[in-house]
């Protein structure tokens, strides 16, 4: 659970940490507490999973990873947990989720984000997954992003 001070800290940091030598002290000044208290609370929120991690997120395009393929799979529902765990363990997969199908327009129940420096690499990697699944691959597709339309961090209103 988060209280009012946690919320203030979240609001003050969700766009990023201040780029100064003592960022947590500055956040403390901003929300009316000490840097120590800010650090205690950030540590607690990390332990509770409210914060996934504190660190840097690179723009993967800047690093040359220009191909970002969302591979989507139609696998037997009763085997999705087993298959999801296997795909998630691959070192080129960043996220793997089970999601609902939508009859008529969307038959896929498993999503795995595959990253590479080129589209070809992504296709090769998707083929690795397909080979691994064998008959459990009842159909798959890879959706490349052709444009980023918006990307912001999470925002508390």
């Amino acid at each position, binding site marked *: 659970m988060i209280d009012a001070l946690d919320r203030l800290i979240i609001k003050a940091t969700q766009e990023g940490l201040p780029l100064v030598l003592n960022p947590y002290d500055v956040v403390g000044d901003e929300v009316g507490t000490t840097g120590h208290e800010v650090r205690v609370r950030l540590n607690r929120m990390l332990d509770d999973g409210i914060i996934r991690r*504190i660190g*840097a997120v690179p723009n993967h395009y800047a690093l040359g990873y220009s191909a970002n393929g969302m591979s989507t799979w139609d696998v037997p529902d009763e085997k999705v947990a087993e298959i999801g765990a296997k795909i998630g363990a691959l070192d080129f997969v960043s996220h793997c989720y089970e999601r609902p199908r939508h009859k008529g327009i969307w038959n896929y129940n498993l999503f795995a984000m595959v990253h590479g420096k080129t589209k070809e690499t992504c296709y090769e990697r998707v083929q690795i997954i397909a080979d691994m699944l064998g008959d459990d691959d009842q159909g798959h597709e890879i959706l490349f992003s052709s444009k980023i339309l918006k990307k912001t961090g999470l925002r508390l209103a």
Partner: protein
Amino acid sequence: MRKIEPVELDDLERLLINELQGGFPISQRPFYDVAMRLGSDEETVLTKISSLRERGVLSRFGPMYNAEKMGGGLTLAAISIPEDDFDRVNDIVNGFGEVAHNYKREHELNMWFVLATETPERVQQCCNEITEATGYQVYNMPKKQEFFIGLRFEA
């Protein structure tokens, strides 16, 4: 995230990007701690990180909050939009504060966005509002199970 051209990085910048994806210290002088670990000094580390942020090489630097653990809702949703109506719909969708990421993808479902909402109930509401505002059906695809999150990009 902006789609930007690959950039030239020096050795310390590469090291910082690779290291700091794994975490950043919660201490009084965190840049000092990082500098000690990497054999640099804190002013240099701070300057480098500030520059990486300014150049857009780092799209974020700080805590990554988990919407669901904060009592909020999160989902992935998609819409199928005719090409000649895409820009209009895009403006409407991006106008929703709950839309955190939005990608154009090559598929019949050609717009895919992440909704991060204050409450779980707000997710479906938001999908309905976007359907109403754009005139196109929003397909809500909330995750049912999560298998892995956390790839690092080698700089």
